[in-house]
């Protein structure tokens, strides 16, 4: 399973969510899926992403997702720098 933590407007993917509690959506793992594919599976637009993390490290569209990963999705505007069309390259040290 993928533990997907949702922030900002993405919280609406979980009913009865609120900002003061963790909003977590558990998703099935699909082998070979990248971050971009995962986002699309949730019916979200990669262009709408702010800073997103996989296991605490910055994600980009091509980052592979593995079973048991913790994925955090922040919408655009919730970030350090705007990158309106894609997620920046991973740095192994945040």
């Amino acid at each position, binding site marked *: 399973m993928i533990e997907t933590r949702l922030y*900002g*407007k993405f919280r609406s993917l979980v009913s009865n969510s609120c900002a*003061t509690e963790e909003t977590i959506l558990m998703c099935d793992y699909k082998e070979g899926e990248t971050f971009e594919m995962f986002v699309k599976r949730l019916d979200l637009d990669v262009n709408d992403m*702010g800073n997103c993390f996989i296991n605490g490290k910055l994600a980009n569209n091509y980052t592979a997702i593995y079973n048991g990963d913790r994925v955090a999705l922040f919408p655009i*505007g*919730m970030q350090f720098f*705007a990158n309106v069309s894609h997620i920046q390259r991973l740095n192994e040290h*945040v």
Partner: protein
Amino acid sequence: MAYKILRVNMSDLSHKWEDLPAEYETLAGRALTSTIVSKEVDPMCHPLREFNKIVISPGLLAGTSAPSSGRLSVGGKSPLTGGIKEANAGGITAGKLGCLGIRGVIIEGMPPAGTSDWYSIIIQKDKCEIKKTNEYANMGLYDLITKIWQDYPSKPGIIGCGIAGQRLSPNAGVFGNNVENTDPGRYAGRGGLGGVLGSKRVISVITDDTGGEPPQPKDKEKFEEGRKMFTKALTAHPVTGKLKDDDGNPYGGLSNYGTNVLMNILNEAGGLPTKNFRSGRFENAAKISGEAVHELVDKTKEKFGDAAEGRYGHACHPGCVMMCSNVVPYENTGKHQVGPLEYESAWALGTNLTIGDLHDVAELNRICNDVGLDTIEAGGTLGVLMEAGLIAFGDGKGAIAALKEIYNDNSALGRLCASGATNAGKVLGVSRIPSVKGQSLPAYDPRPIRGIGVTYATTPMGADHTAGYTIAAEILGIKGEVTDPRILEKADLSRTFQATTAFIDATGYCLFIAFCVLDDDNGMAGMAQTINAFLGKEIDIGAYGMAILKAELDFNRRAGFTEKDDRLPEFFLKEPLPPHDVTFDVADDEVDKVYKGV
């Protein structure tokens, strides 16, 4: 406009107006405070005696129509670090000083030993009065700013020191009133400069700009062109942008969630220092986040209507378009509890202490505002008290009770709470004190975020994230390129950002413009054009920033600082931080490269 410097002598209660020297023509804000401190203050002086000075300077564009340009710098020798200090804040004083043509206020000397009187400095157009105001002493600052606006109905800017500063506490900040005068929370907080004011027996500096005029740029047309370009870039950027998009949905990250938008982001990144820097994640981060404040404000607005006082999208100074400030309301009444609650404060008084109750965190912030303390250092101090077992981690009510001891002149615990993390830690025998040069670390752990660790270690200011905000550049590529930050040496990264930051600190622009200008060419071009058009000459940003840093480094070296002081505490090098389980492993010689030869 011919700019002036107002020099106030508290030894004989005199003042004089000086023409701004030609060599200071382009200097303002941090550039002016650090230049004057470096030239006029003996680096070996005792910071709480007569030879230290307080220098107050509005940024270069303060009072103009440039967006988000009303920041105020306060400088001097820091009682907390023993080195040079510049702290800056929003509020309304900078714009008013700008409109009066005052580029700097220097407060020097001190009344004779044994003096029991307290004074306020009232600044008006071409006029200065040093007035005995003993009735202002020992007041909570929420009451004081209300009283001053009653005494001076022209709605002046007010900065000064609270109870903590009047007692010369090492963590006393310089407060400033907000636009509505409902909160003294616009702090030039770091480094104990409130105590320097207190040592000079000055409680408040009151600025009334009646009869003043906005400063005029040398090239009005170019200035206006730059202003429009920059404003457009700021309001369009997803981080600094307007409150709502065209569909009425939340847009700007800062306007909607404040700087505290970072709480959840840093938490996910695993770099959110928790429980006195033991972990990089806090299970209750969401409860005290910017999103939580946003939700609470909406909830109380719905419940209390026009009577609700909670706010987001609030400007900390007139003309700010980013509007990242907020007011946290009491949930049961909708009334003003504290404003602002910044990320750094929510972290220091919340996450760092594992306090996950928003109202407890807001109350701690309110107490800091009322007594005149820097919230970051206050949180660091409480963290050390918890480390020593005086208060339990997570005990919000216990932390509030301890901090309230500051109101009691005879309370040793109160004095300890106002003394700063390093001092308190030494007294209590704590070996995990997160500070550099005596100043407490802010809200980014240096182990996973090594560039900020280099900044903490090397900036002349002591541990200070604003001195060189490398977090974004490390997490993301540098503007314009998909750059792997591993390629950039941390020293180069830190130095570049420190110099750029120093420049921004001189302009009057809020540091958060960096989110836009480092990402948007038009934003950078527009911002640079406003500066160049105002001065009527081209400014080399890097050279300007480095000149400020050189003055500060020179002061610190003459004060006795060496490379040995540019180090993080030992525990950062030895204790891996979960969840990434990394230590700060930047070698000393890499750290020393930041300013080698400078």
